[in-house]
């Protein structure tokens, strides 16, 4: 038996490899740099890593290959756009994560114990969060470009495992944070088991692990259809869990609420881009010919997700839970781009993912600013009258909410318009009706928060807004600018996406 060495196109894999190298350097910094200078060193390495990876991505953007790492990674236009979005979102989230006031000093210490108090008094900082973020980013970069089932599974775990840990690092309300980590971990592991079992059946059906091989088997139609159906169903469960679609959403409100807010921001935005990237690739590239098997089910899930997310969000009294349910509704809107199964659907999904991700990071960044002596205030009642005391912060938050609602002049409007028109052109008017209906419901609860902030009097134990640090200000400024610019001049990005976004198969 002879072994042939694999051929790897390092230039195309470089963005992922650079981020992994940065993460490893971060681990070494933990071990060798004095604790007083660790945080600044970590931030510098993390930001430099993301910037270099982005520069490399720009350099190779025009190239494409279905064999970037044998058949395991496909590097193509859609992959470039998704990876670019993830890197931008990761960069602005990093500034937010670097504001260490949100993280516990000693994650391993029992809450309320002497160890914890000593660590706080010694001003120990949780710098491990930087390498963890970079490992998660590397997984996210790999996820939407994987083109075989093993790589997809490994990337899924690579992005999830650091996030499980990061969810448990909150400084305030630590028990709730640990609970969020436990729930995220148990349900995440449960769903990846479903994914893997489904992958086994897709392999059994097509006798190949690569997306191209599965595509060939699906369009040839030779295998056992029961295996195909089981495979599609179980793989979809695993992927839909990651984006928080309706029957598999149970983890997301709890985790969004319990996790430290910067981590919530990063997870909500970047995971969604990566997971939808993978969903788009697997459904467009390898299961496109079997659309009659999955499309009806996905239409039902998309409609249920939109309506459920918008309706339940109305009843929420906690701002992070409200944003969690709103992100469930957005997952439903994004699924209509998958269902469209057309070039227009792909373009619209990529634009929507980028616009929504950036606005999400900005929205959660504002949430970190509203505090009292015991940490963040997420109870919406105590936000009332915020606009009278801190007009700038409140109006920026209102702007992000309007972007989520899809009001013209924000990126959210362009995103929603293009994704619904793509779904309609592909003949899914049910999706269109449900989408517009749930957008209207969603607008109701976004605007309710705006009314609460600007037209109600402040309550007695109301929250106050802390002076944002330079890092948090950067995050908010960048995301607000992108959201506004994409709302007014979307054409350059839309044209770029339209000319670039293709799936090589």
């Amino acid at each position, binding site marked *: 038996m002879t072994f042939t060495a694999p051929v790897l196109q390092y230039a195309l894999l470089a963005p992922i490899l650079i981020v992994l190298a940065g993460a490893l350097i971060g681990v070494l910094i933990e071990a060798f740099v004095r604790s007083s200078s660790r945080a600044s060193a970590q931030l510098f390495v993390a930001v430099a890593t993301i910037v270099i990876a982005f520069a490399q991505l720009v350099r190779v953007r025009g190239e494409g290959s279905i064999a970037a790492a044998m058949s395991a990674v496909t590097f193509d236009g859609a992959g470039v756009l998704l990876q670019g979005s993830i890197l931008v979102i990761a960069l602005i989230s990093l500034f937010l994560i670097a504001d260490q006031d949100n993280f516990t000093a000693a*994650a*391993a210490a*029992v*809450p309320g114990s002497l160890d914890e108090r000593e660590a706080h008094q010694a001003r120990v900082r949780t710098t491990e969060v930087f390498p963890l973020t970079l490992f998660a980013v590397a997984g996210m970069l790999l996820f939407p470009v994987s083109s075989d*089932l*093993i790589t997809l*599974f*490994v990337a899924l*775990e690579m992005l999830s*495992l650091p996030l*499980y*840990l990061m969810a*448990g690092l909150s400084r305030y*309300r*630590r*028990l*709730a944070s*640990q*609970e*969020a*980590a*436990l*729930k995220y*971990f*148990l349900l995440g*592991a*449960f769903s990846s*088991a*479903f994914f*893997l*079992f489904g*992958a*086994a*059946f897709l*392999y*059994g059906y097509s*006798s*190949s*692990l690569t997306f191209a091989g599965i595509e060939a088997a699906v369009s040839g139609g030779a295998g056992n259809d029961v295996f195909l159906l089981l495979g599609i169903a179980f793989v979809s469960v695993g992927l839909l869990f990651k984006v928080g679609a309706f029957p598999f959403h149970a983890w997301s*409100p*709890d985790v969004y*609420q*319990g996790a430290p807010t910067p981590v919530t921001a990063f997870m909500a935005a970047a995971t969604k881009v990566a997971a939808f990237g993978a969903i788009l690739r697997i459904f467009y590239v390898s299961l496109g010919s079997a659309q009659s098997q999955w499309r009806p089910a996905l239409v039902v899930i998309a409609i249920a997700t939109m309506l459920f997310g918008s309706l339940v969000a109305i009843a929420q009294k*906690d701002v992070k*839970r409200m944003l969690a349910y709103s992100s469930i509704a957005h997952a439903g809107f994004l699924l209509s781009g998958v269902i469209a199964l057309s070039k227009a659907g792909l373009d619209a999904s990529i634009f929507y993912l980028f616009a929504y991700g950036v606005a999400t990071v900005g929205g959660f960044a504002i949430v970190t600013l509203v505090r009292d002596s015991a940490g963040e205030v997420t109870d919406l009642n105590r936000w009332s009258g915020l606009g009278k005391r801190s007009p700038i912060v409140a109006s920026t938050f209102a702007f992000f909410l309007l972007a989520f609602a899809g009001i013209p002049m924000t990126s959210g409007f362009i995103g929603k318009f293009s994704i619904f028109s793509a779904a309609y052109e592909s003949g899914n008017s049910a999706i269109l009706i449900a989408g517009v209906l749930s957008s209207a419901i969603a607008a109701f609860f976004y605007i309710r928060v705006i009314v609460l902030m600007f037209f109600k009097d402040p309550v007695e134990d109301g929250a106050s807004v802390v002076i944002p640090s330079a890092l948090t200000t950067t995050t908010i400024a960048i995301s607000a600018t992108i959201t506004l610019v994409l709302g007014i001049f979307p054409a350059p990005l839309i044209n770029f996406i339209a000319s670039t976004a293709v799936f090589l198969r």
Partner: protein
Amino acid sequence: MNPNNYLYVASLLFTIGAVGVVVRRNAIVVFMCVELMLNAANLAFVTFSRINGNLDGQVTAFFTMVVAACEVVVGLAIIVTIYRSRRSASVDDASLLKR
């Protein structure tokens, strides 16, 4: 022996694991049930490898084992931390976050 029987065993193991995750209350046991599901998937991969006559499925089984080992490290860390805070590893006790 008909290799399909192994698929039945894999499905049975997977179902036992999934039911266990839903009905058991101790976080460690829930986690063991997840591991059972992963191993059921492994068995399915190896069986399909035999049926299809190529080695891809067996290679996947190795990847799964490594990933499952990583998951154990992270998962037990989280479960031990929460046990030390609460003196309990029951998933019902962890209910601070609003339903």
